[in-house]
């Protein structure tokens, strides 16, 4: 059968590759740019030749451990996450290097150089060097897919977890990709207890560590994973280019553009760690100067340790951000002494993102800011980070940090005075389940007097609406048990718990104030207020709620409060006439902005 060609996003290509390679357990926690990988497997699950368990796990550590145990039974499995998700999964990930796996196991970690949607631009390849785990760096969506089956085979040959590291520009690129049929592996779950491995106490670890090091040496010389050389014509003697990932693609296009294809030795590194020592040696002997292009940290460069290396360590290649084509052009021109490219105008920022029109988080933040203008606002990772546009977010760190940070703020302030500031933590429902629960228990037992507002929009909104544990729906819209938030909060020892829809700002503000009274009362502690309103990105939510024709009348005094302080993107200023206007293309007719107007100029009417 001739292979079918489809236009696939990198993440879809990877998802399709997992199905074709006979992966039977896939677990992930959503996070940009990785999210669409599991979604693609879910969408294609009917193509799988064998049973396939898919899950949106509660966090990345759990996803990794679920996939790991499935591999112990001999089946192929995968854990998928974004780069900072690997920090959450670091504990099992590090030990797995020593203990190994049985069925092929991949960890797909999507990095975000730039960063575009992350709290840092850490390089998973360097993480793998520290963990001693082989890592693959694909240069295109089609290549990412093509490397999945060989990566499973490598994992099984050496009983080792293998990491595939696509970056944002691979994940979110589309390409014509060839579709194949899934392999049939016909494996039955067969866990064989072996305390020297699966239990491995310190007594067993030196031998396992030795085995790991021996395996890494063999993996580094595996023929299928060697750097690929495109030879030059020797017009640039003793000079080479070494690149990996999307930067390799950028470089290839640039060389073509400049008429330099096949003029200079060019290596593509597929597996940046472990790098073949013979390759390194060869480069030392053959070349005096080597330009090394990789994102984001100098992982290949560190291993090559070439005295003529031009890269991040000597500052010739920018150490931060993406190596976009223009950057590669400048670096290459300087390396080869070419005419430098025209100076680029300073990059201009476009429209900043903001909470959607009608987002209930906006209403909650507006009320919080109104009730506690002098408050401290720790917040967290999700759409609601955008509460910073309303001045209602003071800290964002990593998943779940806001609750512990809120408690930390309290401990520091209460030492000085009984008149501590009101600390209002905001955390989304998915983030609360991910890493908020241990932090909540800790805040309660340490008697922190803080208000925690759980912004419950019934979904993981930022990444496109993955299911959350309290909705009773699992991956692929399958019904499951629902784990409600309220009993969890109560079981954590919280004695003040209220639930309200922040669209009703008057009552919501009454509850915020009573929460503040509670935390300051003699018996006070953690107060939790659940702000509950569905995500308006969900068409069902929009259809179920009232929608009005919202307009601004002649009473408008041009005070800008609705535009700047309430910050709904459906409102903008007509600067010429100094009045606010509703953009009817974007307004969803919720009317939540009405409260922000000091002169009652925003009005709502039934739609005709």
């Amino acid at each position: 059968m001739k292979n079918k060609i489809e236009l696939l996003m990198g993440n879809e290509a990877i998802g399709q590759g997992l199905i074709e390679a006979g992966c039977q357990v896939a677990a992930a926690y959503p996070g940009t740019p990785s999210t669409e990988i599991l979604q693609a497997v879910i969408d294609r699950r009917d193509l799988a030749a064998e049973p396939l368990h898919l899950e949106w796990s509660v966090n990345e550590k759990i996803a990794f451990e679920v996939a790991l145990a499935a591999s112990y039974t001999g089946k192929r499995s995968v854990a998928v996450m974004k780069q900072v998700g690997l920090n959450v999964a670091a504990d099992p990930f590090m030990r797995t290097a020593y203990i190994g796996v049985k069925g092929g196991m991949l960890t797909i970690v999507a990095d975000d150089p730039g960063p575009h949607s992350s709290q840092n631009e850490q390089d998973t390849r360097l993480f793998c060097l520290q963990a001693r785990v082989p890592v693959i760096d694909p240069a295109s969506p089609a290549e990412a897919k093509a490397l999945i089956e060989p990566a499973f085979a490598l994992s099984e040959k050496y009983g080792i977890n293998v990491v595939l590291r696509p970056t944002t520009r691979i994940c979110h690129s589309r390409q014509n990709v060839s579709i194949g049929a899934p392999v049939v592996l016909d494996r039955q779950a067969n866990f064989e207890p072996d305390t020297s491995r699966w239990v491995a106490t310190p007594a067993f670890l030196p031998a396992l560590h030795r085995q790991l090091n021996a395996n890494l040496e063999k993996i580094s010389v595996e023929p299928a994973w060697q750097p690929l050389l495109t030879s030059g014509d020797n017009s640039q003697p003793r000079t080479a280019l070494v690149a990996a990932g999307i930067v390799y693609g950028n470089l290839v296009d640039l060389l073509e553009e400049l008429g330099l294809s096949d003029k200079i030795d060019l290596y593509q590194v597929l597996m940046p760690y472990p790098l073949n020592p013979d390759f390194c040696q060869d480069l030392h002997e053959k070349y005096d100067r080597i330009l090394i292009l990789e994102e984001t940290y100098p992982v290949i460069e560190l291993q090559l340790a070439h005295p003529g290396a031009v890269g991040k360590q000597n500052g010739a290649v920018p150490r931060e951000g993406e190596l976009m084509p223009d950057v590669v052009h400048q670096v290459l021109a300087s390396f080869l002494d070419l005419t430098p490219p025209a100076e680029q105008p300073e990059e201009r920022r476009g429209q900043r993102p903001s909470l959607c029109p009608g987002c209930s988080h906006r209403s909650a933040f507006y009320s919080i800011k109104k009730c506690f203008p002098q408050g401290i606002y720790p917040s967290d990772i999700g759409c609601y980070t955008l509460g910073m546009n309303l001045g209602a977010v003071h800290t964002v760190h990593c998943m779940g940090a806001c609750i512990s940070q809120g408690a930390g703020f309290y401990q520091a302030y209460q030492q000085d005075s009984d008149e501590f500031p009101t600390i209002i933590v905001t955390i989304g429902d998915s983030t609360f389940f991910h890493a908020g629960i241990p932090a909540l228990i800790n805040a309660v037992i340490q008697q922190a007097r803080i208000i925690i507002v759980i912004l419950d929009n019934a979904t993981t909104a930022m990444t496109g609406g993955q299911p959350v544990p309290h909705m009773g729906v699992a991956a692929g819209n399958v019904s499951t048990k629902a784990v409600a938030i309220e009993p969890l909060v109560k079981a954590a020892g919280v004695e003040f718990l209220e639930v309200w829809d922040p669209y009703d700002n008057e009552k919501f503000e009454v509850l915020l104030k009573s929460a503040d009274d509670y935390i300051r009362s003699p018996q006070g502690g953690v107060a939790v207020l659940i702000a509950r309103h569905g995500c308006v990105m969900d068409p069902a939510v929009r259809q179920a709620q009232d929608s009005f024709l919202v307009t601004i009348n002649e009473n408008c005094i041009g005070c800008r409060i609705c535009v700047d302080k309430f910050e709904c993107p459906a409102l903008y200023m007509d600067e010429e006439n100094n009045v606010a206007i509703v953009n009817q293309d974007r307004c969803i007719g919720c009317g939540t902005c009405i409260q922000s107007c000091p002169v009652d100029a925003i009005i709502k009417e039934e739609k005709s």
Partner: protein
Amino acid sequence: MKQQIIVSGIGGQGVLFLTRVIAQVAVNRNIPVLTSETHGMAQRGGTVLSTIKIGDFASPLICSGQADLGLLLWEANLPVHQSLLQEKGVWIINSSNNSDHISINAAKIARDLGNAVLLNLVLLGAAIKDEALCFTVDECETAIKQLAPKKFVEQNLAAFHKGLSC
């Protein structure tokens, strides 16, 4: 055939769908294509940019001064993405009054059709009409039918045709 295209707008305007339609036409013609898209937080109403490279390329990203065509759904992005277009490049802009470039009030046309989001395909129609994209009307229609959810196919085709005839 080689062509480099950028599609610029803000999250929620249908930049991704338009990108996919263009890339799908290339796939249907059996021409290699690479696109790069903006996902994640910027999609919440922020500036988004897609790049499309049709032909024999290794990376979807576009160097400054290399794009042949820019489809601009959000006029205020012009100063942000202008440097990507080559000197002879063509901008087709959703605008009510931009005299420097090919401008078409796609938002109004889309609104008259009942949904502002349809402006993406109005612009596509305009690009075909002006021969800024070397695709046929049939090829675009096929791709739209392949990619649009069934119940929106007619609406999408209507928007495309409005762009063709304006």
